[in-house]
């Protein structure tokens, strides 16, 4: 059967009409705590069983229960209901039989009416109806009497606990404190009750035959009184044995309880240690937070400093440098022109000198002096004797040379000379322009670094919150408020240890006594029988023998079949357990189903060397339980429940990390042909979601996210505004 859809109308926190459509494979409904997950689970339960989980009694109670009736209809729907009117809630599921193609539509409705005075009239009964649609889609209503059988077809009662379970129920399904937990499961798995029947039958048949035999024997006996004596002795011994058996059970119970209490305390001790460890981890996180915050603040402070120390203040002012460059350029040109004016004068002078056929550049006075001494023009290489015109011209040149030098001394071209200052401004601008070009890039890098720190801060804060929550969870469960209370735990622990030693002694004593009695009984029975042998008809003797054999074989066979089932269950459970813990191989060990003092089987965790693993690892315990639950279903080859019925689970993997959530979902998708997992683990975690989608691949069905319209605080004050928002993401 494939559960195709469920539609909720005004059901608890679901206001209005909400439909979830499911396919084969793994379907996921994701929501945070308080979003409406357990109410969705309630919807499945209610439409089929007329029950809803009551958090006070921690049981599923009928609609008739007064606390249930009150809360079935959505508060928001009730708020919209005027006095004198009524409002109803209903849930409808559509179940498909894939082989035949026909569908069942099961609906349950419940109405409440608002009186004129504003109070509510709440009937004690809900109404159920069903429709059957064959593969040609012709629908016809199902008569009330048949609805029960449809329900059982949708989900048989014996497999129901292992196919539809909520987080809290996992613990009680495989309750380590309930001894017959696996026995019940084995019954689901197999036909072991059949072998119980034969064991009983054979035992009874044998006892009857034996009684007969002994009676006949006594009748035929030569020694009636001896017979009687033995018979009464036998009776006495048997009743003593019964009493000893009761004593043994009592002693075994005491011992088991004492051991459990010791384990409990051990758990608390470990919790105390764990709390201590987590607390120091919290301190570490806080220190890192502080450090990150300080670094961030320093960097932010630096930003404003950088305005001046790294010239960030000049961001975008490059154009000013260009503008000034233009102005400065114009200034220098004009100035150069003025300089050029001076230069022109100089040029004119040079022309005059040229006319003397002297170098344009007027020679140094010393050179002219040389010429005078040598009485020779060294330029045109002609004589220039003293007194000649040539000599006089050269002498004139000397005069001119001296005065020329004076004249050519640079005269200031302007009144004020600010050229160096203007130039320095230009150079300053150019230099800063280099910085200006870098500024944008630098700002980007610094801001990026700050944002990175911010992200890091958020991450650490998140881890801190998770850590704190873990501490609170442990504290809640173990009721250890401080490290000091662990000291009293140690004292209690020791006293339990002593009690255990005492009970072990008691048990041993009783068992020895029992053995003695049992062998006494055997001897007496032998004696009695020997009195009768030869006296009673052979056929009776034979009969007794055959039935004795039958009884022995029946008992042995039952034990053998049972052990085989246990082995099978263990094997399947380990398969699932390994699959679920594939990402966390480190501390998982193996599941072993162990027989306890009272003959019941319990799952235990062992390491690879066969030594028991400390049972304190909570995460493993839940996973073991889940693995066993799945094994109970998957091991039953004859009628494969896993193929026939959907798994609906709100499993508590969230405590134990993302990897377990993925492991559980993946295993579910492999074991069951349809599973509907209602989970908090994937909420607001698209990475984890995508990892899961990749893992599950084609086996992925529909995925929904549910969110409440109000936060937890808002809900307290505005209950009648609450509704659930449902989004389909796959």
């Amino acid at each position, binding site marked *: 059967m494939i559960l195709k859809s469920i539609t909720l109308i005004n059901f608890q926190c679901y206001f209005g009409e909400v439909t979830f459509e499911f396919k084969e494979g793994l379907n996921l409904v994701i929501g945070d705590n308080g979003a409406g997950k357990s109410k969705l689970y309630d919807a499945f339960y209610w439409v089929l069983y007329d029950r809803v989980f009551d958090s006070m009694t921690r049981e599923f109670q009928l609609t008739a229960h007064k606390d249930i009736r009150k809360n079935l209809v959505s508060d928001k729907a009730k708020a919209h209901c005027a006095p004198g009117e009524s409002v109803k809630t209903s849930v409808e599921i559509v179940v498909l039989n894939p082989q035949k193609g026909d569908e069942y539509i099961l609906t349950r409705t419940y109405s409440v009416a608002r009186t004129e005075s504003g109070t509510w009239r709440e009937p004690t009964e809900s109404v159920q109806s069903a429709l059957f649609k064959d593969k040609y889609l012709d629908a016809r209503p199902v008569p009330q009497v048949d609805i029960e059988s449809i329900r059982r077809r949708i989900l048989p009662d014996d497999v129901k606990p292992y196919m539809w379970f909520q987080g809290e129920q996992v613990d009680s399904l495989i309750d380590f404190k309930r001894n017959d937990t696996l026995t019940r499961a084995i019954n689901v798995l197999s036909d072991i009750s059949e072998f119980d029947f034969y064991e009983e039958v054979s035992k009874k048949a044998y006892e009857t035959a034996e009684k007969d035999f002994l009676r006949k024997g006594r009748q035929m006996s030569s020694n009636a009184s001896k017979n009687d004596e033995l018979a009464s002795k036998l009776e006495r011994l048997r009743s003593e044995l019964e009493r000893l058996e009761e004593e043994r059970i009592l002693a075994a119970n005491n011992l088991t309880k004492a051991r459990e209490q010791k384990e409990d305390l051990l758990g608390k001790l470990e919790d105390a240690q764990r709390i201590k460890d987590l607390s120091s981890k919290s301190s570490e996180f806080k220190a890192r937070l502080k450090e990150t915050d300080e670094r961030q603040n320093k960097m932010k*402070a630096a930003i404003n400093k950088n305005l001046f120390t790294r010239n960030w203040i000049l961001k975008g002012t490059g154009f000013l440098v260009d503008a000034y460059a233009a102005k400065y350029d114009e200034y220098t040109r004009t100035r150069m022109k003025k300089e050029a004016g001076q230069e022109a004068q100089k040029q004119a002078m040079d022309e005059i000198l040229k006319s003397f056929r002297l170098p344009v550049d007027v020679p140094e006075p010393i050179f002219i002096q040389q010429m005078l001494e040598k009485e020779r023009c060294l330029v045109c290489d002609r004589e220039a004797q003293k007194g000649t015109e040539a000599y006089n011209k050269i002498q004139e040149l000397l005069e001119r040379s001296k005065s020329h030098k004076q004249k050519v001394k640079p005269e200031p071209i302007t009144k004020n000379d600010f050229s160096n200052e203007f130039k320095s401004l230009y150079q300053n601008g150019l230099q800063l322009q280099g910085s200006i070009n870098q500024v944008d890039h630098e700002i980007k890098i610094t801001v990026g670094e700050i944002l990175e720190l911010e992200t890091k801060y958020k991450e650490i804060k998140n881890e801190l919150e998770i850590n704190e929550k873990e501490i609170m969870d442990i504290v809640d469960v173990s009721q250890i408020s401080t490290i000091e209370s662990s000291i009293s735990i140690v004292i209690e622990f020791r006293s339990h240890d002593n009690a255990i030693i005492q009970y072990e002694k008691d048990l041993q004593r009783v068992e020895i006594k029992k053995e003695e009695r049992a062998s006494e009984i055997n001897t007496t029975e032998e004696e009695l029988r020997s009195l009768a042998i030869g006296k009673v008809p052979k056929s009776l003797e034979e009969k007794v023998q055959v039935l004795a054999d039958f009884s022995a074989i029946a008992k042995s066979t039952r034990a053998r079949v049972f052990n085989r089932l246990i082995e099978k269950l263990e094997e399947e459970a380990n398969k699932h357990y390994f699959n679920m813990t594939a990402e966390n191989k480190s501390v998982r060990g193996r599941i072993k189903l162990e027989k306890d003092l009272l003959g019941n089987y319990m799952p235990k965790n062992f390491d690879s060397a066969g030594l028991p693993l400390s049972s304190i690892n909570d995460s493993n315990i839940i996973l073991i339980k889940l693995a066993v639950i799945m094994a109970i279903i998957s091991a039953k080859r004859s009628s494969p429940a896993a193929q026939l019925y959907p798994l609906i689970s709100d499993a508590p993997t969230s405590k134990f990390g993302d990897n377990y959530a993925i492991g559980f979902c993946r295993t579910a998708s492999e074991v069951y042909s349809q599973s509907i997992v209602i989970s908090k683990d994937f909420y607001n975690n698209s990475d984890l979601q995508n990892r899961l989608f990749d893992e599950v691949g084609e086996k992925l069905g529909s995925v929904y996210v549910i969110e409440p319209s109000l936060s937890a605080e808002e809900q307290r004050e505005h209950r009648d505004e609450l509704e659930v928002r449902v989004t389909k993401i796959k």
Partner: protein
Amino acid sequence: MEFIKRFEDRAPVYAKMYHESIIDRFSLVGGRDEDLKQKTGRYFSNIYEIYTYSALLGIKNNYRIPLEGLITKDFNKIRYWQPNELVRFVFMALLTKSDLNLNLVEEMEEKDVEREITKLKNLLEEYTNGGFDIIYSKIKETPYFFENEYCFLELLELPLNDFGSKKECF
């Protein structure tokens, strides 16, 4: 260094109305506690720092407002402003904004040169006034803008177009 030196000898003023809302609010003169400074939003350590910032803000956005009719306060001479390169940069920018002819000023008499320097100082004050106005209107429009440490960095992003010739007063 005659020209620049004359400029550096001046002590510009600002409109008193900005003293509390901007100068006092965003700067803390003296004081060693940098953390406290940043926490209380006082990002500038000197009046001239925020003055320079506003001057550049006004210049970049080509936005100036005359100080006429406004009560003013003065503070340090420009000579004492740090860092010097930045001050010179501002002066350079003022020169580009003014209509002063660099060649002509070289021919001026002393008293005329002083007059030009005064004009440049006024220009500085007007652009700074414009910068303050930009900051002030931002405070009015989006007061929470300044609760963020990056606020003065972000103001530098202002596009030039916003305060172009529209608000050019003269």
